[in-house]
């Protein structure tokens, strides 16, 4: 069990580190923190309380709070998708903006029975758009598409991350996603 106070302290510390504020409305804040706590108890990680999860870590990696989309959302709208994290202007005005979902549809779709989704996709898609070659991840023998992780490095500060996509904004030097490049290597990762 995670203590609510622990969730609150973690969020406060993260906001402070990145120059953000937590939502100015106490009842909303309480609700977000409770949602995070429930998800952490349920799935083992503080999943975004405003999004549907697959319950599988690798599928949910981008929506573990603070999510991948927080930094670009706060930069563009003044708040993250949930509106847990806000910038100074929003914090002071107390007017929470509408924040559209930035998470790509194909990642959202992972929350819905992946096995069914991959099997029914070709028939549904064939009527609407010309067939596209199946991504390499779907050609594997496993039932569920695997998340293919790669090594990425920030060309500005050298930060290295091993995951599906590079972050929208470098957590170290704030460089944009475009500054990330894939590291081509033949190193094998065991365990």
């Amino acid at each position, binding site marked *: 069990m995670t203590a609510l106070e622990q969730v609150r302290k973690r969020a406060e510390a993260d906001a402070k580190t990145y120059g953000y504020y937590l939502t100015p409305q106490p009842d*909303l804040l309480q*609700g*977000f923190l*409770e*949602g*995070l706590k*429930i*998800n952490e108890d349920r799935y083992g990680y503080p999943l975004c*309380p*405003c*999004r*549907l*999860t697959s319950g599988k870590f690798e599928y949910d990696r981008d929506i573990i709070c603070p999510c991948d989309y927080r930094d670009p959302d706060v930069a563009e709208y003044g708040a993250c998708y*949930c509106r847990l994290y806000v910038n100074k202007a929003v914090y002071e005005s107390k007017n929470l903006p*509408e924040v559209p*979902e930035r998470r790509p*549809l194909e990642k*959202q*779709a992972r*929350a*819905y*029975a992946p096995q*069914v*989704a991959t099997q029914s996709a070709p028939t549904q898609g064939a009527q609407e758009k010309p067939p596209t070659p199946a991504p390499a991840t779907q050609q594997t023998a496993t039932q569920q598409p695997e998340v293919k992780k790669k090594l990425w490095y920030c060309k500005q500060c050298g930060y290295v991350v091993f995951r599906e996509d590079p972050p929208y904004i470098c957590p170290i030097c704030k460089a944009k996603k475009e500054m990330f490049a894939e590291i081509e290597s033949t190193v094998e990762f065991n365990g």
Partner: protein
Amino acid sequence: MEFSKVSGKKNNHKVTLYALSTCVWCKLTKQFLNENEISYEFVDVDLLGEEDKQKVRQTITSKGGSLTYPTTIIDNKVVITGFRKDKLKEALEI
């Protein structure tokens, strides 16, 4: 899939709410409907089994909605994404 039904004085519209049990904006939508005494049915999608989740996905996308919560469907045609009091008021004529 079992919907929880909430009865209110105003039942001239069929209101279906797709929500998440952890989501504050979903709770506020329920609260808003309750306060305005609207009859509605809702389901917490995160608590459903895989098959039901798939059905929810098909229902929402077939009506042109996005897979975000809360999603409110009024009279099987108006889809309101997010907790939008203005849009809910307009669609529910309150």
